[in-house]
C-alpha cells in the first residue's frame, strides 16, 4: 500500500452543477421541512379538521347504511333507534345522495375557517421573516429568479391549503363512494368530486395569494398573521353591513370570503340559502383579489435588495 496523506483543508468540488428546470423545488421542500419541524402547531391545527372529517365521514356512511336498513352498531343497537333515525333521514335513495352532497358542501363551508387558519399560520412568515432576517440576501445570490422564489413560497402556503381544503373533502367523497349502494354516489354524483377539488383549489389559491401579499407587506410574522385575519374579517364585516344597509346583496362582493361562498353554491350547484346575488360579480371579486395580491407581492419583492 503506497503511503499518502490527505491533509488539505479545503477540497475543491469536483461534481457537477446542473441547471435544473424547476429551480424552486429545493426551496419549497426546505421551507416545508422547516415549517413542520414543530409538532405542536401541526397537531393543534390539523386536529379539528381531522376530527371534522371523521365525523362527517361517519355521518355520510351512517346515512347510507341506515337507508340500506343496516344501521351501524355505533349508533346503538336496536331497531327502534334505527327506525327513528331512519324516519329522521328520508329513506328515498335520491334524496340520500343529495344529502351526502349537501353534507360535503356544508363541510367545506364549515371548515373554510380552519383551512384559512392553516394557511395563515404557516404562510404569514413566508416572506416577512425572510426579509426580516435577511434570507433573501442568500437566496437571490443564487441562480434563482424572483419568480422562482415567489412560486416556491406560494406553493408552501398552497400545500397547507390543499391539505386543509381539498384532502378532507376527498376523504369524505371516498367514504361516500364506498358506502353508497352499488357505487351510486360515484355514478350519479361524481361531479361532486370535481367540485370538491375545484372549489378547494380555488379557495386555496385565493387565500394563499392574500396571505402571500400580506406577508410581503408586513415587517414580521406576527404582524402578517394579524393582518391576514384583519383583511378577512374587515372585508366580511364591511360587506355584510353594506349589504344590509343598502339592501343590496351585491355588496357581498367586497369580501373575498363571501364571494368564495357564493362561488361554492354555484360550483356545487346548490340552491342558495340567502338571496342569490350576482355570480359574475363574485367571480370578478375573487379574480380581482388574486390579481391585486400578486401585483403587490411582485412590487414588494422587487424592492428586496441583495447588496446594500
Amino acid at each position, binding site marked *: 500500500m503506497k503511503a499518502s496523506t490527505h491533509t488539505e*483543508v*479545503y*477540497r*475543491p*468540488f469536483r*461534481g*457537477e*452543477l*446542473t*441547471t*435544473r428546470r424547476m*429551480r424552486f423545488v*429545493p*426551496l419549497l421542500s*426546505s421551507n416545508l*421541512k*422547516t415549517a413542520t*419541524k414543530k409538532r405542536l402547531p401541526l397537531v393543534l391545527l390539523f386536529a379539528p379538521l381531522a376530527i371534522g372529517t371523521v365525523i362527517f365521514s361517519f355521518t355520510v356512511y351512517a346515512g347510507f347504511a341506515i337507508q340500506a336498513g343496516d344501521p351501524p352498531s355505533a349508533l346503538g343497537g336496536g331497531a327502534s333507534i334505527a327506525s327513528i333515525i331512519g324516519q329522521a333521514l328520508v329513506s328515498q335513495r335520491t334524496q340520500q345522495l343529495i344529502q351526502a352532497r349537501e353534507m360535503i358542501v356544508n363541510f367545506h363551508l364549515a371548515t373554510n375557517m380552519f383551512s384559512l387558519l392553516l394557511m395563515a399560520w404557516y404562510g404569514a*412568515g413566508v416572506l416577512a*421573516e*425572510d426579509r426580516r*432576517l*435577511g*434570507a*433573501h*440576501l*442568500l*437566496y*437571490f*445570490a*443564487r*441562480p*434563482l*429568479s424572483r419568480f422562482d422564489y415567489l412560486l416556491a413560497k406560494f406553493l408552501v402556503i398552497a400545500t397547507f391549503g390543499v391539505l386543509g381544503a381539498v384532502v378532507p373533502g376527498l376523504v369524505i367523497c371516498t367514504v361516500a363512494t364506498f358506502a353508497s349502494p352499488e357505487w351510486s354516489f360515484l355514478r350519479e354524483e361524481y361531479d361532486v368530486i370535481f367540485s370538491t377539488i375545484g372549489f378547494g383549489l380555488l379557495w386555496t389559491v385565493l387565500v394563499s395569494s392574500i396571505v402571500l401579499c400580506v406577508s410581503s407587506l408586513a415587517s414580521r410574522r406576527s404582524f402578517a398573521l394579524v393582518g391576514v385575519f384583519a383583511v378577512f374579517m374587515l372585508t366580511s364585516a364591511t360587506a355584510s353591513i353594506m349589504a344590509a344597509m343598502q339592501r343590496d346583496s351585491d355588496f357581498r362582493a367586497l369580501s373575498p370570503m363571501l364571494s368564495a361562498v357564493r362561488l361554492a353554491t354555484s360550483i356545487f350547484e346548490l340552491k342558495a340559502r340567502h338571496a342569490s346575488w350576482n355570480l359574475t360579480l363574485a367571480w370578478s371579486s375573487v379574480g380581482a383579489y388574486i390579481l391585486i395580491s400578486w401585483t403587490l407581492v411582485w412590487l414588494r419583492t422587487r424592492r428586496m435588495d*441583495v*447588496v*446594500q
Partner: protein
Amino acid sequence: MTDSVVSIRDLTKSYGKVRALDSISFELSPGPVGLLGPNGAGKTTLLKLLLGLLEPDSGAATIAGYDPRKRADRLTLRARIGYMPESDCLIPRTSAVELVGTLARLTGLSATDAMTRAHEVLDYVGLDESRYRDCDSYSTGMKQRLKLAQALVHDPPILLLDEPTNGLDPKGRRHMLDLVWDLGHVQGKSLLLCSHLLPDVERCCRDVIVLKKGRVVAQGSIEALTRTEARRVRVSIDGDADRFATELERLGIASERDANDWMLRLAGDDCDVVFDAALAAAVRIQRVEPVRSTLEDAFVKTLSAAEDERA
C-alpha cells in the same frame, strides 16, 4: 490576460441622472484583490453587477465566461460566484447544515453532493458541533463563518466578500483573515475583498482597486502603491539621547528627533551604521524600522489626487 476570471471594460450604469458606475475597466485574475473606496463610490452597484443582479447600460463585461448583458447569463453566472453579504442574513429556524445544504441545492448541486459539500465547507470554516443547531442562536463570529461557508459551498472561482470581519473580536478577525488569505493565495480563488479596514486588506491582498464617484482612481499592487521611502528609518532608543545625537552627527547622519523617537536619513544600503552610533553612545536600540507609507496613506493620497484632477 488568459487567466482573467472577470474582465470589465468601459462599463457604465446610471440610475436616472446619477452615474453610479462611470466607464470603469479592470481585470481580476486568481488571487485576492481589495476593493476600496469611500461610501457611495459605486461599490454596491459594482457588486450587484458582478452578481448579475443588474444589467449594465453600456460597456462589455465577462464574468466567469458569462455576459451580464444577457438575461439568461445573468442568472446562471451566480453559480460561479460566491457572495458573503455584509448585513446579517439567516434563514429562519434552520440549522447551519440545512442552510448551506439548501443553498447548495438551489445552486444546482444534487442532494447528496450538497450535503457532502455542506459538511466540508463547515469543517473548513470551523463550525463543529454547532452546525446542527438552529442558527438563530449563533454568536457574531459563528454567523460570519456561516456566511463564508455558504459562499464557498458550490466552490465558485469568484468570491465577493463584503466586510468579512464585521463585529469580530481580534481572535475571530485573525481566523477570518487566515481563511481569506488561504482562499486567495492557496486555493487560487479570484477574491474581491470589500473592507474599510485597510490593515486587513494589506494583510490579505496583493492588489487593490480604488473607486471614487463611480470611477477607478487607482489600481495596482499594494507594493507599488506603498513604496518604501528612500532610506528613511524610524529609530527608538532608551538611554542618553543627547550622546546619541552627538554620535549621529559625528557619523554624518541627518536626523529629526521627537523625544526618544528619531527619523534618520541614511546613505548606505543598510542600517548597520545606526548600531555604530548606538555602541559609541552606549544607548539601547529598541526599534529600527524603514519608513513605509501605509495603504491608508496611499488611499488618502489617491483620493485627494482624484479630487484635484476634477477641480
